[in-house]
């Protein structure tokens, strides 16, 4: 028995998948979800083998939902039309069904899943999707059992923390399993500057730079936080702030 979950905000879209699944007696549909938040909960509770995942959904999209999972199951994406998502798929082994899709097309995707024992790497697809305009302006994180959507304007600064990045906001800090380099690229358009190997700062939050003979210049944020600035970071800051 393989456990299946369908995640799509349109009931009728889920019906099509359910109908096509009838051809596979050893597939067991354990749950249906109408959005990504429910999806995360259900996946954690049911640990499915395969999910059918829509991309455009309420609150968080399919990619953002996958980001929140520690061990994502095998995914077959279903989407009607999404330029950016399709670009993200093109150079990966990930399978996707374009709605409306035929039984034949569905069968191919499922057989590909059955034949293949190794799960294709989702990281790359998720990362390239995260750079698309619909996702760039926000970061989705897990806060205990809750899911939090942080608009980038609310981020004060980012700090590297081993394999994670610590996101500092007025409400607290959150961990995200991404690289500093990823954030440096994706946040460039939102007035963020990398001031140090370990820090990326929201330039809106800067109140001043303090010279310090011992440890080099320190950046002062309007929250009172002081951050070290590297030589390269200082040069970038000067350019960005026009000083």
């Amino acid at each position: 028995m393989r456990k299946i979950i369908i995640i799509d905000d349109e009931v009728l879209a889920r019906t099509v998948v359910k109908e096509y699944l009838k051809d596979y007696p050893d597939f067991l549909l354990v749950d249906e979800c109408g959005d990504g938040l429910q999806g995360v909960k259900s996946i954690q509770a049911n640990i499915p083998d395969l999910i059918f995942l829509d991309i455009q959904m309420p609150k968080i999209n399919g990619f953002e939902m996958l980001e929140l999972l520690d061990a994502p199951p095998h995914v077959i994406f279903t989407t009607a039309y999404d330029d950016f998502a399709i670009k993200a798929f093109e150079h990966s082994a990930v399978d996707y069904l374009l709605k409306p899709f035929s039984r034949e097309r569905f069968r191919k995707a499922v057989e590909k899943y059955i034949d293949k024992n190794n799960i294709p790497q989702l990281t790359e697809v998720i990362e390239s999707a995260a750079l698309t305009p619909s996702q760039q302006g926000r970061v989705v994180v897990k806060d205990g059992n809750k899911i939090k959507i942080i608009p980038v304007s609310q981020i004060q600064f980012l700090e590297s923390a081993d394999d994670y990045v610590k996101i500092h906001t007025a409400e607290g800090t959150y961990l995200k399993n991404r690289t500093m380099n990823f954030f440096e690229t994706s946040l460039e358009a939102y007035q963020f500057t990398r001031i140090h190997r370990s820090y990326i700062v929201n330039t809106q939050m800067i109140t001043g730079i303090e010279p310090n003979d011992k440890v080099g210049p320190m950046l002062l944020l309007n929250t009172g936080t002081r951050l070290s600035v590297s030589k390269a970071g200082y040069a970038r800051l000067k350019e960005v702030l026009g000083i």
Partner: protein
Amino acid sequence: MAISILSDKKLRFFFLAWWLVWVLIQYSALMQMRIDNRHAIADSVIGVSLLALSSMVLNNNLRYYLPRHKYGHLFSLSAIITIIWWIIFQGVLFLFFSKGDPYLDFVRSTSAIRFGAAFLLLSSMSMFSTLWYSHLDQRETNERRSESEKLIREAELNNLRQQLQPHFLFNSLNSISSLIISDPEKARDMIFQLSDFLRGTLKKETQQWISLKEEFEYLRLYLEIEKVRFGNRLQTELIYPDDILNFKIPVLLLQPVVENAIKFGLYDTTGIVPISIEAISDDKYLKVIVKNPFDPETSVPLKGTGFGLDSVKRRLFLLFARADLVETGIDGQIFITKIKIPQPQ
């Protein structure tokens, strides 16, 4: 190639009058110089006619080749034609009058002033022609330019209006595919609704105005389709006083606004999404207010989400040359879009 200066009726008359006046002036001048009537008439008529002919040659020449800002060219052209005129004029006089006629000596003795006057006339004629033809040329260029600008504007309006969201289309087709399994009758209904909707977007006239009544009918069609897709989550409400239905609106203006509101509401919240569309009359405007719920805490002002509104703004700008007809605002957890449509007089 420009049309000839002489194809203009008024100008033709003016030229004729001008040369007649010139004949009279020359005739009176010759009379004052005590030249007898016969010689004076022959002199002025032949001289001026030849001059008129020369000016036509000159004019025609400029019609095919317009030397822009090359006044040296104009000057030498006028000089050459004056010289030719002078040679022909003398030749003709020799034909008319026998050798030894004292009049011919008179002609020779006045050659400097005659040549000077002819040159002056012909060069002003050439200046005039040049101005005339460049003016025509300019006008044609302007006409062409405004014509092409108009075409571009129309194409853009057409484009903006027909920007059917492929996401909507493919999802609707997917809903139909699903309904065929569960409810074939409803599937067929949805095919009809979708067909009617698509037919509406294919109407050719770009600047066509329709009544609010028609626009609302079209909007209802769209809302019905979306309700099939999203089921109970989507609740819509059209609010308007009856007397407003005759107000005019550019065809298909509201659908992208409502589509934007629906997407915003559906993807920003998880519960039931009430969308209200209200039409009111305000001075000389038709005002349409669209409201959708959203989550102010997580909502991100994206370039992408505003697509529907951007195209509406652009369309209204192209139609009215005004950028202040679309307004957006926030009231708690409600996002408000206001559209003002100036009413044709």
